[in-house]
């Protein structure tokens, strides 16, 4: 799975941190009621049977071609994303809070984007520092004063949530650019229905099957209403992109053509695709290509993945690009620290889902606190992602810390710091035995004329014991996530 922006976390646990929250069973108590049915089922299965089911699952993924390509020096191989057999279960009351929190957050962030690319009232009121927003590399001046239907800049959002040791969920990152992973959510569901049909039927799991058609109607809602039957396409960087499977999957389930940049032609500020019967007008582009690459005339000139003139067609209102370019400014690592204030500013509400405590090194007081505690913090460069430009305090050498201290002093605006976070754990099948592993939660939220939170998520798993890194590029896997329609108690096993 490609994670356009990935979760970076401390690599190992430190003894000083509190014990993680376990999704299935607290350290000193019985199994949580919503896990009881699964636990009862597991008790009837031998390690051999479990391993057999794990193989069935892996074969399902391999046959479907749900793989990512590993480019090696000598040979190129395809691997499946490590997928865990045991579902992660979330009861209805917990989900209700997550759902409300995510909807609130996306609503506020879209209002923030509308404001930033419009009047910039929030900057004039001094709620978020002006230079922090306008100097962010993800801020796109080109988007200033552009009309976006329903003020929905981010149409597809895949937030990363984590559960803290006290059991409360918090947002680690808002992914508003081109979040991926939704195909794994859907594929994991297909697989777990095959593996635990009885338990699944009894548990009352909420369906996520409608995601593709909700996505399609969200995309269609972004078109000006004078164009009936809008032509929606999915724009992919191509078959060599590690998330290609997902692009093809969504295109197939939406019935939308999967196009590459070379299939698109811009003429007279209108976008066309090259078909066998000539050029056909395109109305909505669900792009899975980063801002930088969508139009060589406006953004990166060396990009061959987009279409020349696309942004001008967008400016002219002749095509809709989803997500809108420039949404990255709202999930910037430094802006992140201000999201609770942003929610209060626009909605007059407190954030339902809290942030992780974040120190902005641009503030001298916070910088000196970070410098004094470099061995405890995770320090991240604001502009970087994917684990680059990052210091994991508890796991670093004195020399690395000294190097980062110099970098922090030289360019404090470029860094933030967060305490090392203890993710919750969930039972996973590792070498035929069930062991706890750290997990996070990536739900998917759609926003067009209305906001829809899909009742399910991708649960990412750090498959290495004790590891807190859930990135697929670093040995992370995933598992199905069951959102229950009830509390999960009154079910037959």
């Amino acid at each position, binding site marked *: 799975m490609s994670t356009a922006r990935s979760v970076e976390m401390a690599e190992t646990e430190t003894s000083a941190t509190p014990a993680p929250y376990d999704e299935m069973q607290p350290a000193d108590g019985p199994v949580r009621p919503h896990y009881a049915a699964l636990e009862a089922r597991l008790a009837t299965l031998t390690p051999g049977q479990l391993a057999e089911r794990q193989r069935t699952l892996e074969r399902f993924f*391999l*046959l*479907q*071609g749900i793989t990512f390509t590993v480019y090696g020096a000598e040979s190129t191989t395809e691997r499946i994303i490590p997928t865990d057999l045991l579902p992660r279960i979330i009861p209805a009351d917990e989900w209700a809070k997550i759902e409300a929190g995510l909807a609130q957050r996306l609503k506020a962030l879209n209002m923030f984007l509308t404001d930033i690319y419009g009047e910039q009232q929030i900057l004039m009121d001094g709620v978020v520092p002006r230079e922090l927003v306008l100097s962010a590399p993800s801020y796109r001046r080109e988007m200033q004063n552009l009309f976006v239907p329903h003020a929905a800049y981010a149409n597809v959002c895949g937030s990363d949530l984590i559960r803290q040791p006290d059991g409360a969920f918090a947002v680690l990152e808002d992914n508003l650019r081109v979040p991926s992973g939704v195909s794994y959510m859907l594929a994991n569901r297909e697989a777990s229905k095959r593996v635990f049909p009885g338990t699944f039927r009894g548990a009352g799991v909420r369906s996520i099957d409608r995601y593709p058609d909700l996505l399609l109607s969200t995309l269609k809602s972004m078109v000006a209403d004078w164009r009936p039957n809008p032509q929606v396409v*999915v724009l992919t960087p191509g*078959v060599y992109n590690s998330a*290609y*499977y997902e692009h*093809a*999957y969504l*295109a*197939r389930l939406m019935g*939308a*053509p*999967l*196009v*590459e940049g*070379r*299939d698109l*032609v811009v*003429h007279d500020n209108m976008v*066309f*695709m*090259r*078909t*066998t*019967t*000539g*050029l*056909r*007008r395109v109305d909505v582009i669900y792009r899975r290509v980063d801002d930088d690459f969508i139009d060589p005339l406006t953004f990166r000139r060396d990009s061959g993945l987009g279409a020349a003139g696309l942004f001008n067609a967008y400016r002219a209102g002749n095509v809709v690009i989803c997500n809108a370019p420039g949404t990255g400014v709202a999930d910037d690592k430094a802006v992140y620290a201000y999201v609770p204030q942003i929610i209060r500013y626009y909605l007059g509400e407190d954030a339902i889902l809290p942030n992780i405590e974040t120190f902005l090194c641009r503030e001298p007081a916070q910088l000196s606190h970070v410098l004094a505690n470099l061995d405890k913090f995770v320090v991240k460069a604001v502009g970087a992602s994917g684990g680059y430009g990052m210091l994991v305090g508890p796991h670093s050498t004195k020399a690395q810390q000294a190097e980062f201290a110099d970098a922090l002093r030289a360019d404090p605006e470029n860094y933030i710091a967060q305490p090392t976070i203890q993710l919750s754990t969930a039972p996973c099948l590792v070498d035929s035995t069930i062991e706890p592993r750290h997990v996070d939660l990536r739900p998917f939220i759609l926003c067009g004329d209305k906001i829809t939170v899909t009742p399910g998520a991708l649960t990412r798993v750090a498959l290495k014991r004790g590891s807190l890194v859930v990135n697929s590029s670093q040995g992370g896997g995933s598992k199905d996530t069951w959102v229950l329609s009830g509390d999960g108690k009154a079910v037959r096993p």
Partner: protein
Amino acid sequence: MMLARVADSLYWMGRYVERAEHMCRLMDVMLNATLDRSEAANQVGRIALASADHPDPAKVVDPYEAALALTLDRENESSITTSLANARENARQVRDQITTEAWERLNVLYLRMTGAGAARAFADGSSSFLTEAIADLHLFKGAADATMSHGEGWSFLTLGVHLERAQLIGRMLEVCFGEGRTTAVSDHFALTSLLRMSCALEPYLRVYTADIQPKHILAFLLLDAEFPRSIRFCTQRMEEHLSAVSRHAEVAPAANPERLAGRLKARLQYADMSEIEAGGASAFLTTVLDECAAIHQALYEVYVAYPLELRLPA
């Protein structure tokens, strides 16, 4: 209406699937035949290798090694695994256009042929290995036929299959009866092997009985109206599907591949075997293969790589 790139990929997926199947058959027949050590067996080996575009069939000492390379060698451009990898790569590019049922069949075969156990399985029994691959390719075609919509995409896929098939059969006939052959193939064993390579033995026997004659084989593989591997049959399918896809495109008649396919179909439909023999089978085969190449060319110019300025909206 579909993306030109997608049509291109479906077309090539069809071509590569057909190429892989034909190569399986060539290798299977060759390995079976060369179990005997006779001049006829050697001749069959040379025919198979030449049909597989082997650079120098006469120099091949060990048919098993040659077959192994043409089956599993990823470096070899004509090998079965290369064709399958290309077919799957094209399928992956248009994964949204083909059904999961069809994709799975192709993917399973690809994974088996490129997996760690493939070399071992080939060594253990090349014949069952190749026969199973052919059966899997039939499953793929059947699954595609039964689950995909028979619309434009299907037409491009089918066009690829039949154009490739016509060219492969044409190439094989050229090897046996074309110009530059010192001795025409006349041996009974070689002739039956030729029929086996085109999967034509049983259908041939039903038409001509066990009277196996070069001119009957030529007539059957070139001109038979019902046998799915005769060039005439393939051309009929090509014309049908070209006519289906041209319904929506505004194509200048002169450049239309449908016209070329129709002309070739008529040439084969009204051909007379004695005339062909009088003029030389080789000249006729050359014409047929040239026209197949022209159809491919025209298909590209009209549907895939057309000049944009001609197609801009008014």
